[in-house]
Protein backbone atom coordinates (compact mmCIF):
# COMPACT_ATOMS: atom_id res chain seq x y z
CA UNK A 1 0.00 0.00 0.00
CA UNK A 2 1.14 3.55 -0.61
CA UNK A 3 0.13 6.98 0.57
CA UNK A 4 -2.30 8.64 -1.79
CA UNK A 5 -0.83 11.37 -3.95
CA UNK A 6 -3.32 13.37 -5.98
CA UNK A 7 -2.76 13.69 -9.71
CA UNK A 8 -4.34 16.47 -11.78
CA UNK A 9 -7.01 13.97 -12.79
CA UNK A 10 -7.73 13.12 -9.15
CA UNK A 11 -8.22 16.81 -8.40
CA UNK A 12 -10.64 17.05 -11.33
CA UNK A 13 -12.57 14.01 -10.16
CA UNK A 14 -12.95 15.17 -6.59
CA UNK A 15 -13.86 18.72 -7.55
CA UNK A 16 -16.52 17.49 -9.98
CA UNK A 17 -17.84 15.15 -7.33
CA UNK A 18 -18.22 18.06 -4.94
CA UNK A 19 -20.02 20.05 -7.60
CA UNK A 20 -22.13 17.09 -8.67
CA UNK A 21 -20.93 17.69 -12.20
CA UNK A 22 -20.39 14.89 -14.78
CA UNK A 23 -16.79 13.89 -15.38
CA UNK A 24 -16.97 14.87 -19.02
CA UNK A 25 -17.88 18.43 -18.02
CA UNK A 26 -21.35 19.80 -17.42
CA UNK A 27 -22.06 23.19 -15.92
CA UNK A 28 -18.32 23.84 -15.78
CA UNK A 29 -16.13 23.14 -18.75
CA UNK A 30 -12.90 21.24 -18.15
CA UNK A 31 -10.66 24.18 -19.06
CA UNK A 32 -12.29 26.38 -16.44
CA UNK A 33 -12.08 23.63 -13.83
CA UNK A 34 -8.38 23.19 -14.55
CA UNK A 35 -7.92 26.91 -14.01
CA UNK A 36 -9.76 26.77 -10.68
CA UNK A 37 -7.76 23.74 -9.54
CA UNK A 38 -4.46 25.48 -10.25
CA UNK A 39 -5.73 28.65 -8.58
CA UNK A 40 -6.69 26.55 -5.55
CA UNK A 41 -3.24 24.97 -5.56
CA UNK A 42 -1.74 28.45 -5.43
CA UNK A 43 -4.04 29.46 -2.59
CA UNK A 44 -3.25 26.37 -0.54
CA UNK A 45 0.49 26.92 -1.02
CA UNK A 46 0.07 30.56 0.07
CA UNK A 47 -1.89 29.57 3.17
CA UNK A 48 0.04 26.57 4.45
CA UNK A 49 3.59 27.49 3.29
CA UNK A 50 4.77 23.93 3.69
CA UNK A 51 7.28 23.48 0.89
CA UNK A 52 10.80 24.88 1.05
CA UNK A 53 13.46 25.24 -1.59
CA UNK A 54 17.07 26.36 -1.90
CA UNK A 55 18.28 28.03 -5.07
CA UNK A 56 21.72 29.38 -5.98
CA UNK A 57 21.97 33.02 -7.02
CA UNK A 58 25.05 34.32 -8.79
CA UNK A 59 26.41 37.47 -7.19
CA UNK A 60 28.74 39.88 -8.89
CA UNK A 61 31.41 41.89 -7.13
CA UNK A 62 30.12 45.36 -6.42
CA UNK A 63 26.54 44.64 -7.46
CA UNK A 64 23.97 45.13 -4.70
CA UNK A 65 20.56 44.61 -6.30
CA UNK A 66 19.43 41.14 -7.43
CA UNK A 67 16.28 39.41 -8.63
CA UNK A 68 14.71 36.52 -6.79
CA UNK A 69 14.34 33.17 -8.54
CA UNK A 70 11.29 33.17 -10.80
CA UNK A 71 9.40 30.67 -8.60
CA UNK A 72 10.02 32.45 -5.30
CA UNK A 73 7.01 33.29 -3.16
CA UNK A 74 8.38 34.12 0.31
CA UNK A 75 12.07 34.54 1.17
CA UNK A 76 13.25 33.01 4.44
CA UNK A 77 17.01 33.51 4.56
CA UNK A 78 20.20 33.62 2.52
CA UNK A 79 23.31 31.64 3.23
CA UNK A 80 26.66 32.46 1.71
CA UNK A 81 29.73 30.42 0.85
CA UNK A 82 32.96 30.33 2.85
CA UNK A 83 34.33 32.87 0.41
CA UNK A 84 31.69 35.32 1.65
CA UNK A 85 32.07 34.38 5.30
CA UNK A 86 29.46 31.60 5.65
CA UNK A 87 26.94 34.26 6.59
CA UNK A 88 23.33 33.36 7.19
CA UNK A 89 21.23 36.44 6.54
CA UNK A 90 17.63 36.99 7.51
CA UNK A 91 15.43 39.59 5.83
CA UNK A 92 15.65 43.04 7.31
CA UNK A 93 14.45 46.48 6.31
CA UNK A 94 15.92 49.69 4.96
CA UNK A 95 15.03 51.36 8.24
CA UNK A 96 17.08 48.83 10.15
CA UNK A 97 20.19 49.75 8.17
CA UNK A 98 19.51 53.44 8.43
CA UNK A 99 19.59 53.04 12.22
CA UNK A 100 23.22 51.90 12.17
CA UNK A 101 25.62 54.31 13.88
CA UNK A 102 22.80 56.43 15.30
CA UNK A 103 21.47 57.01 11.82
CA UNK A 104 24.71 58.44 10.47
CA UNK A 105 25.90 55.39 8.58
CA UNK A 106 26.47 56.12 4.89
CA UNK A 107 25.71 52.48 4.15
CA UNK A 108 24.68 53.04 0.59
CA UNK A 109 28.11 54.18 -0.46
CA UNK A 110 30.22 51.66 -2.21
CA UNK A 111 32.17 49.56 0.29
CA UNK A 112 32.18 46.00 -1.08
CA UNK A 113 32.71 43.49 1.71
CA UNK A 114 31.11 40.43 3.28
CA UNK A 115 27.35 40.74 3.34
CA UNK A 116 25.64 41.48 6.59
CA UNK A 117 22.18 42.58 5.44
CA UNK A 118 19.57 41.04 3.19
CA UNK A 119 16.82 43.52 2.35
CA UNK A 120 13.81 42.45 0.28
CA UNK A 121 12.95 45.28 -2.09
CA UNK A 122 9.75 45.47 -4.13
CA UNK A 123 8.13 42.12 -4.89
CA UNK A 124 10.88 40.77 -7.09
CA UNK A 125 14.22 42.21 -5.92
CA UNK A 126 16.51 42.21 -2.95
CA UNK A 127 19.48 44.27 -1.85
CA UNK A 128 22.69 42.84 -0.45
CA UNK A 129 24.62 45.14 1.82
CA UNK A 130 27.54 45.48 1.66
CA UNK A 131 27.74 44.53 -1.99
CA UNK A 132 29.88 41.40 -2.48
CA UNK A 133 33.59 41.96 -2.94
CA UNK A 134 33.97 38.89 -5.17
CA UNK A 135 31.96 37.05 -7.78
CA UNK A 136 30.37 34.04 -6.11
CA UNK A 137 27.16 32.12 -5.56
CA UNK A 138 24.87 32.54 -2.60
CA UNK A 139 21.84 30.43 -1.75
CA UNK A 140 18.32 31.57 -1.06
CA UNK A 141 16.17 29.45 1.23
CA UNK A 142 12.58 30.25 0.34
CA UNK A 143 9.00 29.14 0.04
CA UNK A 144 8.41 28.60 -3.68
CA UNK A 145 5.27 28.84 -5.75
CA UNK A 146 3.91 25.38 -6.46
CA UNK A 147 4.38 23.99 -9.94
CA UNK A 148 1.20 24.43 -11.91
CA UNK A 149 -0.47 21.21 -13.04
CA UNK A 150 -0.72 20.75 -16.81
CA UNK A 151 -0.89 17.05 -17.67
CA UNK A 152 -3.36 14.60 -16.22
CA UNK A 153 -0.66 12.67 -14.34
CA UNK A 154 1.03 15.75 -12.81
CA UNK A 155 1.34 15.79 -9.03
CA UNK A 156 2.26 18.42 -6.47
CA UNK A 157 4.92 18.53 -3.75
CA UNK A 158 2.37 19.51 -1.11
CA UNK A 159 1.69 16.84 1.52
CA UNK A 160 -1.54 14.86 1.42
CA UNK A 161 -3.22 16.93 4.13
CA UNK A 162 -2.73 20.05 2.01
CA UNK A 163 -3.64 18.29 -1.24
CA UNK A 164 -7.03 17.50 0.22
CA UNK A 165 -7.74 21.21 0.51
CA UNK A 166 -7.32 21.83 -3.21
CA UNK A 167 -10.64 20.39 -4.43
CA UNK A 168 -12.46 22.24 -1.64
CA UNK A 169 -11.17 25.63 -2.72
CA UNK A 170 -11.51 24.74 -6.41
CA UNK A 171 -15.16 23.88 -5.78
CA UNK A 172 -15.61 27.26 -4.10
CA UNK A 173 -14.17 29.09 -7.10
CA UNK A 174 -16.27 27.04 -9.51
CA UNK A 175 -19.47 27.46 -7.54
CA UNK A 176 -18.99 31.25 -7.50
CA UNK A 177 -19.96 31.10 -11.15
CA UNK A 178 -23.21 29.37 -10.42
CA UNK A 179 -24.39 30.03 -6.88
CA UNK A 180 -22.35 32.29 -4.56
CA UNK A 181 -24.35 31.16 -1.52
CA UNK A 182 -23.47 27.52 -2.11
CA UNK A 183 -19.90 28.60 -2.79
CA UNK A 184 -19.63 30.07 0.68
CA UNK A 185 -20.18 26.59 2.12
CA UNK A 186 -17.05 25.34 0.35
CA UNK A 187 -15.08 28.40 1.49
CA UNK A 188 -16.10 27.88 5.12
CA UNK A 189 -15.02 24.27 4.96
CA UNK A 190 -11.73 25.27 3.39
CA UNK A 191 -10.98 27.82 6.09
CA UNK A 192 -11.79 25.41 8.86
CA UNK A 193 -9.72 22.56 7.48
CA UNK A 194 -6.84 24.77 6.39
CA UNK A 195 -6.09 25.67 10.01
CA UNK A 196 -5.45 22.04 10.83
CA UNK A 197 -2.97 21.79 8.00
CA UNK A 198 -1.26 24.90 9.29
CA UNK A 199 -0.79 23.14 12.59
CA UNK A 200 1.30 20.60 10.73
CA UNK A 201 3.37 23.42 9.28
CA UNK A 202 3.94 24.96 12.71
CA UNK A 203 4.86 21.58 14.04
CA UNK A 204 7.48 21.17 11.33
CA UNK A 205 8.81 24.70 11.68
CA UNK A 206 9.75 24.49 15.32
CA UNK A 207 11.90 27.54 14.79
CA UNK A 208 8.86 29.69 14.49
CA UNK A 209 6.19 29.01 17.10
CA UNK A 210 3.06 31.12 16.87
CA UNK A 211 3.49 32.34 20.42
CA UNK A 212 6.78 32.78 22.20
CA UNK A 213 6.36 32.82 25.94
CA UNK A 214 8.89 34.86 27.90
CA UNK A 215 11.18 33.80 30.71
CA UNK A 216 11.00 30.39 32.25
CA UNK A 217 7.65 29.59 30.84
CA UNK A 218 9.42 29.18 27.52
CA UNK A 219 9.05 25.70 26.14
CA UNK A 220 12.51 24.55 25.11
CA UNK A 221 11.18 22.43 22.34
CA UNK A 222 10.20 25.64 20.52
CA UNK A 223 13.55 27.31 21.02
CA UNK A 224 16.00 28.08 18.29
CA UNK A 225 19.24 28.11 20.28
CA UNK A 226 21.17 29.62 17.45
CA UNK A 227 18.90 32.64 17.27
CA UNK A 228 19.06 33.14 21.02
CA UNK A 229 22.81 32.74 21.24
CA UNK A 230 23.83 34.68 18.17
CA UNK A 231 21.21 37.34 17.80
CA UNK A 232 23.84 40.06 17.81
CA UNK A 233 24.93 38.76 14.44
CA UNK A 234 21.66 39.99 12.92
CA UNK A 235 22.39 43.56 13.78
CA UNK A 236 21.00 43.89 17.29
CA UNK A 237 23.06 45.20 20.14
Amino acid sequence: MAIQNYTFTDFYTETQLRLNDPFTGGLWNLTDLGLYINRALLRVAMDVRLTRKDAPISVVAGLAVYSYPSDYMIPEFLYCSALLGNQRLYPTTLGQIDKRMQGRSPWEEDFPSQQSYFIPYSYNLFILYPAPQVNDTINLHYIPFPTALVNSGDTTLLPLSAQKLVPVFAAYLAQMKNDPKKALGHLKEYKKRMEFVRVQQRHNAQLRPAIMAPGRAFDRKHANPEVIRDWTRWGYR
Partner: protein
Amino acid sequence: MSFSLSRAQIRSEVRGYLMNVDGLQAGWSDTELNAYINEGVFYIQQIAEYYWDFGVAPVILNQRDYAAPDNQYQFIRLTYSQEFLPQTTEYELDRDTNSSWRGNPTGTPARFYMSQHNQVSLYPVPNANGPSYSASQETGEALYFTLADGVTRDSTFFTPFSQELGCICQLTNNAGQSIIKFKADALNRFNSPDYGIVVGYQNDLNNLGFMYLAMPDTMTDDAHIPQIQETGQPAVVYYTLMRCFARDGEFQDFELASAWWQAFMDWMESALQAQAWEFPQRVKSAEPFQQGNILQGRLQAVGPPSQLIVIGSG
Protein backbone atom coordinates in the same frame (compact mmCIF):
# COMPACT_ATOMS: atom_id res chain seq x y z
CA MET B 1 3.79 27.31 -16.36
CA SER B 2 3.82 30.31 -14.10
CA PHE B 3 1.01 31.69 -11.99
CA SER B 4 1.33 35.20 -13.42
CA LEU B 5 -1.72 36.48 -15.27
CA SER B 6 -1.66 38.67 -18.36
CA ARG B 7 -4.35 41.26 -18.96
CA ALA B 8 -5.92 38.93 -21.55
CA GLN B 9 -5.98 36.02 -19.09
CA ILE B 10 -7.56 38.16 -16.39
CA ARG B 11 -10.21 39.42 -18.78
CA SER B 12 -10.89 35.93 -20.08
CA GLU B 13 -11.42 34.60 -16.55
CA VAL B 14 -13.68 37.53 -15.75
CA ARG B 15 -15.75 36.89 -18.88
CA GLY B 16 -16.00 33.22 -17.91
CA TYR B 17 -17.54 34.18 -14.58
CA LEU B 18 -19.77 36.79 -16.19
CA MET B 19 -20.95 34.11 -18.64
CA ASN B 20 -20.75 36.86 -21.17
CA VAL B 21 -18.20 35.74 -23.71
CA ASP B 22 -19.85 36.91 -26.92
CA GLY B 23 -17.89 39.98 -27.91
CA LEU B 24 -20.69 41.20 -30.15
CA GLN B 25 -23.32 41.20 -27.43
CA ALA B 26 -21.16 41.88 -24.48
CA GLY B 27 -22.80 43.48 -21.47
CA TRP B 28 -19.36 44.78 -20.61
CA SER B 29 -17.00 45.95 -23.33
CA ASP B 30 -13.32 45.01 -23.34
CA THR B 31 -12.50 48.67 -22.79
CA GLU B 32 -14.62 48.75 -19.67
CA LEU B 33 -13.13 45.52 -18.32
CA ASN B 34 -9.60 46.72 -19.04
CA ALA B 35 -10.29 49.90 -17.07
CA TYR B 36 -11.55 47.88 -14.09
CA ILE B 37 -8.51 45.59 -14.33
CA ASN B 38 -6.08 48.52 -14.23
CA GLU B 39 -8.05 50.08 -11.40
CA GLY B 40 -7.88 46.79 -9.48
CA VAL B 41 -4.12 46.53 -9.94
CA PHE B 42 -3.61 50.01 -8.53
CA TYR B 43 -6.01 49.34 -5.66
CA ILE B 44 -4.14 46.16 -4.75
CA GLN B 45 -0.84 48.01 -4.93
CA GLN B 46 -2.23 50.64 -2.55
CA ILE B 47 -3.23 47.92 -0.10
CA ALA B 48 -0.33 45.51 -0.37
CA GLU B 49 2.52 47.78 -1.49
CA TYR B 50 4.12 45.15 -3.68
CA TYR B 51 5.94 47.28 -6.21
CA TRP B 52 8.83 49.53 -5.20
CA ASP B 53 11.08 51.37 -7.60
CA PHE B 54 14.32 53.32 -7.72
CA GLY B 55 14.90 56.72 -9.26
CA VAL B 56 17.64 59.29 -9.66
CA ALA B 57 17.38 63.04 -10.30
CA PRO B 58 20.53 64.85 -11.44
CA VAL B 59 21.23 67.76 -9.12
CA ILE B 60 21.67 71.17 -10.74
CA LEU B 61 23.57 74.12 -9.39
CA ASN B 62 21.28 76.63 -7.61
CA GLN B 63 18.13 74.62 -8.38
CA ARG B 64 16.00 73.98 -5.32
CA ASP B 65 13.03 71.98 -6.68
CA TYR B 66 13.17 68.54 -8.32
CA ALA B 67 10.36 66.51 -9.84
CA ALA B 68 9.63 63.17 -8.24
CA PRO B 69 9.68 60.15 -10.57
CA ASP B 70 6.50 59.92 -12.67
CA ASN B 71 5.36 56.67 -11.07
CA GLN B 72 6.09 57.73 -7.51
CA TYR B 73 3.25 56.92 -5.10
CA GLN B 74 4.93 57.29 -1.70
CA PHE B 75 8.56 57.96 -0.91
CA ILE B 76 10.34 55.41 1.24
CA ARG B 77 13.82 56.89 1.35
CA LEU B 78 15.75 59.73 -0.26
CA THR B 79 19.49 60.08 -0.53
CA TYR B 80 21.87 62.76 -1.64
CA SER B 81 25.15 61.35 -2.94
CA GLN B 82 24.23 57.94 -1.52
CA GLU B 83 23.67 59.24 1.99
CA PHE B 84 20.32 59.28 3.74
CA LEU B 85 18.57 62.62 3.40
CA PRO B 86 16.18 63.32 6.29
CA GLN B 87 12.84 64.96 5.64
CA THR B 88 11.87 68.31 7.10
CA THR B 89 9.09 70.83 6.54
CA GLU B 90 8.95 74.45 5.51
CA TYR B 91 7.56 75.20 8.96
CA GLU B 92 10.65 73.73 10.64
CA LEU B 93 13.00 75.58 8.32
CA ASP B 94 11.18 78.87 9.00
CA ARG B 95 11.45 78.21 12.71
CA ASP B 96 15.00 76.94 12.90
CA THR B 97 16.96 78.79 10.22
CA ASN B 98 17.38 82.33 8.99
CA SER B 99 14.60 83.96 7.05
CA SER B 100 16.28 83.70 3.66
CA TRP B 101 16.78 79.94 3.82
CA ARG B 102 14.95 79.35 0.52
CA GLY B 103 17.89 80.56 -1.54
CA ASN B 104 20.70 81.34 0.80
CA PRO B 105 23.01 79.82 1.84
CA THR B 106 23.70 77.30 -0.88
CA GLY B 107 25.69 74.21 -0.05
CA THR B 108 25.48 70.44 0.21
CA PRO B 109 21.85 69.38 0.64
CA ALA B 110 21.21 68.10 4.16
CA ARG B 111 17.40 67.98 4.26
CA PHE B 112 14.50 67.75 1.84
CA TYR B 113 10.90 68.79 2.09
CA MET B 114 7.89 68.08 -0.09
CA SER B 115 7.02 71.37 -1.74
CA GLN B 116 4.39 69.63 -3.85
CA HIS B 117 2.96 66.11 -3.89
CA ASN B 118 5.26 65.23 -6.75
CA GLN B 119 8.12 67.60 -6.09
CA VAL B 120 10.92 67.64 -3.55
CA SER B 121 12.96 70.67 -2.54
CA LEU B 122 16.42 70.68 -1.08
CA TYR B 123 17.88 72.60 1.81
CA PRO B 124 20.46 74.06 1.39
CA VAL B 125 20.08 74.67 -2.32
CA PRO B 126 22.85 72.70 -4.11
CA ASN B 127 25.99 74.64 -4.95
CA ALA B 128 27.28 72.15 -7.54
CA ASN B 129 26.04 70.16 -10.50
CA GLY B 130 25.77 66.42 -10.12
CA PRO B 131 26.87 64.15 -12.97
CA SER B 132 24.43 63.59 -15.80
CA TYR B 133 24.93 61.14 -18.63
CA SER B 134 23.50 60.45 -22.02
CA ALA B 135 24.09 57.38 -24.13
CA SER B 136 24.06 56.52 -27.79
CA GLN B 137 20.48 55.63 -28.64
CA GLU B 138 20.85 54.40 -32.21
CA THR B 139 21.99 50.90 -31.44
CA GLY B 140 19.79 50.39 -28.42
CA GLU B 141 22.85 49.78 -26.30
CA ALA B 142 25.14 52.15 -24.51
CA LEU B 143 28.50 52.42 -26.27
CA TYR B 144 29.75 55.46 -24.49
CA PHE B 145 28.62 58.28 -22.27
CA THR B 146 28.86 61.93 -23.00
CA LEU B 147 29.38 64.85 -20.72
CA ALA B 148 26.51 67.20 -19.92
CA ASP B 149 26.98 68.99 -23.29
CA GLY B 150 25.71 65.82 -24.99
CA VAL B 151 28.61 65.78 -27.46
CA THR B 152 31.93 65.27 -25.69
CA ARG B 153 32.66 61.68 -24.76
CA ASP B 154 33.19 61.12 -21.07
CA SER B 155 36.59 59.48 -20.94
CA THR B 156 36.03 58.48 -17.32
CA PHE B 157 33.78 55.70 -18.48
CA PHE B 158 35.53 54.79 -21.68
CA THR B 159 37.81 52.06 -20.41
CA PRO B 160 35.41 49.82 -18.49
CA PHE B 161 33.17 49.24 -21.49
CA SER B 162 33.40 45.82 -22.99
CA GLN B 163 32.26 46.28 -26.56
CA GLU B 164 32.41 42.65 -27.61
CA LEU B 165 29.69 41.48 -25.26
CA GLY B 166 27.18 44.00 -26.54
CA CYS B 167 25.81 44.79 -23.16
CA ILE B 168 26.97 46.32 -19.93
CA CYS B 169 26.75 44.40 -16.69
CA GLN B 170 28.67 46.67 -14.44
CA LEU B 171 30.37 50.04 -14.38
CA THR B 172 33.24 51.12 -12.22
CA ASN B 173 34.60 54.58 -11.63
CA ASN B 174 38.24 55.68 -11.51
CA ALA B 175 38.64 54.50 -7.92
CA GLY B 176 37.63 50.99 -8.93
CA GLN B 177 34.33 51.32 -7.12
CA SER B 178 31.28 49.85 -8.68
CA ILE B 179 28.43 52.04 -9.86
CA ILE B 180 25.44 49.85 -9.69
CA LYS B 181 22.30 51.85 -10.16
CA PHE B 182 20.81 50.16 -13.19
CA LYS B 183 17.07 50.45 -13.45
CA ALA B 184 15.25 47.21 -12.77
CA ASP B 185 13.36 45.72 -15.65
CA ALA B 186 9.70 46.48 -15.05
CA LEU B 187 8.56 43.17 -16.48
CA ASN B 188 11.09 41.18 -14.46
CA ARG B 189 12.41 39.41 -17.54
CA PHE B 190 15.94 39.12 -16.26
CA ASN B 191 16.62 36.93 -13.28
CA SER B 192 20.35 37.18 -13.56
CA PRO B 193 22.51 40.26 -13.40
CA ASP B 194 24.34 38.95 -16.45
CA TYR B 195 21.51 39.89 -18.79
CA GLY B 196 20.15 43.23 -19.77
CA ILE B 197 21.13 46.33 -21.57
CA VAL B 198 21.42 49.88 -20.42
CA VAL B 199 18.27 51.77 -21.26
CA GLY B 200 18.92 54.85 -19.22
CA TYR B 201 21.85 55.45 -16.98
CA GLN B 202 21.88 57.73 -13.99
CA ASN B 203 24.31 57.78 -11.14
CA ASP B 204 23.17 58.74 -7.66
CA LEU B 205 26.65 59.85 -6.61
CA ASN B 206 26.32 63.64 -6.06
CA ASN B 207 22.72 63.36 -7.20
CA LEU B 208 19.35 62.69 -5.60
CA GLY B 209 18.39 59.04 -5.17
CA PHE B 210 14.80 57.93 -4.61
CA MET B 211 13.44 54.70 -3.21
CA TYR B 212 9.68 54.72 -3.37
CA LEU B 213 6.45 52.84 -3.56
CA ALA B 214 5.50 53.02 -7.19
CA MET B 215 2.30 53.18 -9.14
CA PRO B 216 2.09 50.14 -11.43
CA ASP B 217 2.19 50.87 -15.15
CA THR B 218 -1.20 51.03 -16.81
CA MET B 219 -1.55 47.87 -18.87
CA THR B 220 -2.23 48.86 -22.47
CA ASP B 221 -1.57 45.52 -24.13
CA ASP B 222 -3.18 42.14 -23.56
CA ALA B 223 0.24 40.59 -22.98
CA HIS B 224 1.05 42.96 -20.12
CA ILE B 225 1.33 41.46 -16.65
CA PRO B 226 0.45 43.49 -13.53
CA GLN B 227 3.46 44.74 -11.58
CA ILE B 228 2.39 43.00 -8.41
CA GLN B 229 3.44 39.63 -7.06
CA GLU B 230 1.64 36.57 -8.42
CA THR B 231 0.09 36.01 -4.98
CA GLY B 232 -2.00 39.15 -5.48
CA GLN B 233 -2.87 38.84 -9.16
CA PRO B 234 -5.95 36.58 -8.83
CA ALA B 235 -7.53 39.29 -6.68
CA VAL B 236 -7.63 41.51 -9.78
CA VAL B 237 -10.14 39.08 -11.29
CA TYR B 238 -12.40 39.29 -8.24
CA TYR B 239 -12.09 43.07 -8.02
CA THR B 240 -13.05 43.41 -11.68
CA LEU B 241 -16.10 41.19 -11.18
CA MET B 242 -17.19 43.30 -8.23
CA ARG B 243 -16.99 46.43 -10.36
CA CYS B 244 -18.87 44.78 -13.24
CA PHE B 245 -21.85 43.85 -11.10
CA ALA B 246 -21.87 47.10 -9.14
CA ARG B 247 -22.09 49.25 -12.25
CA ASP B 248 -25.51 50.74 -13.04
CA GLY B 249 -27.31 49.11 -15.96
CA GLU B 250 -29.04 45.99 -17.14
CA PHE B 251 -26.69 43.57 -15.35
CA GLN B 252 -26.43 45.39 -12.04
CA ASP B 253 -26.60 42.90 -9.17
CA PHE B 254 -25.59 44.11 -5.72
CA GLU B 255 -25.72 40.64 -4.24
CA LEU B 256 -23.20 39.32 -6.74
CA ALA B 257 -21.07 42.44 -6.41
CA SER B 258 -21.00 41.93 -2.68
CA ALA B 259 -20.10 38.24 -3.09
CA TRP B 260 -17.17 39.12 -5.35
CA TRP B 261 -16.03 41.81 -2.95
CA GLN B 262 -15.94 39.15 -0.25
CA ALA B 263 -13.95 36.89 -2.59
CA PHE B 264 -11.52 39.75 -3.18
CA MET B 265 -11.16 40.39 0.55
CA ASP B 266 -10.66 36.71 1.27
CA TRP B 267 -7.91 36.40 -1.32
CA MET B 268 -6.15 39.59 -0.27
CA GLU B 269 -6.16 38.58 3.38
CA SER B 270 -4.33 35.41 2.43
CA ALA B 271 -1.93 37.29 0.13
CA LEU B 272 -1.08 39.78 2.87
CA GLN B 273 -0.41 36.99 5.35
CA ALA B 274 1.97 35.41 2.85
CA GLN B 275 3.67 38.77 2.31
CA ALA B 276 4.02 39.36 6.05
CA TRP B 277 5.56 35.95 6.73
CA GLU B 278 8.89 36.51 8.44
CA PHE B 279 11.54 34.32 9.86
CA PRO B 280 12.10 35.14 13.54
CA GLN B 281 15.22 37.01 14.48
CA ARG B 282 14.74 37.30 18.22
CA VAL B 283 12.10 37.08 20.88
CA LYS B 284 10.52 40.51 20.97
CA SER B 285 7.56 39.89 23.24
CA ALA B 286 4.98 37.36 24.19
CA GLU B 287 2.69 38.60 21.43
CA PRO B 288 1.77 36.15 18.68
CA PHE B 289 4.20 36.32 15.77
CA GLN B 290 1.46 35.93 13.23
CA GLN B 291 -0.32 39.22 12.82
CA GLY B 292 -4.07 39.36 12.96
CA ASN B 293 -6.15 40.75 10.15
CA ILE B 294 -3.71 42.86 8.17
CA LEU B 295 -6.22 43.65 5.46
CA GLN B 296 -8.65 45.60 7.65
CA GLY B 297 -5.95 48.04 8.73
CA ARG B 298 -4.81 48.58 5.17
CA LEU B 299 -8.38 49.04 3.95
CA GLN B 300 -8.95 51.68 6.58
CA ALA B 301 -5.89 53.51 5.30
CA VAL B 302 -6.75 53.27 1.60
CA GLY B 303 -10.56 53.44 1.79
CA PRO B 304 -13.15 51.43 -0.10
CA PRO B 305 -12.93 51.12 -3.88
CA SER B 306 -15.18 53.04 -6.21
CA GLN B 307 -18.88 52.09 -5.93
CA LEU B 308 -18.49 49.97 -2.82
CA ILE B 309 -20.60 52.48 -0.93
CA VAL B 310 -23.40 51.57 -3.33
CA ILE B 311 -23.19 47.93 -2.35
CA GLY B 312 -23.52 48.92 1.27
CA SER B 313 -20.56 47.05 2.75
CA GLY B 314 -18.03 49.86 2.50
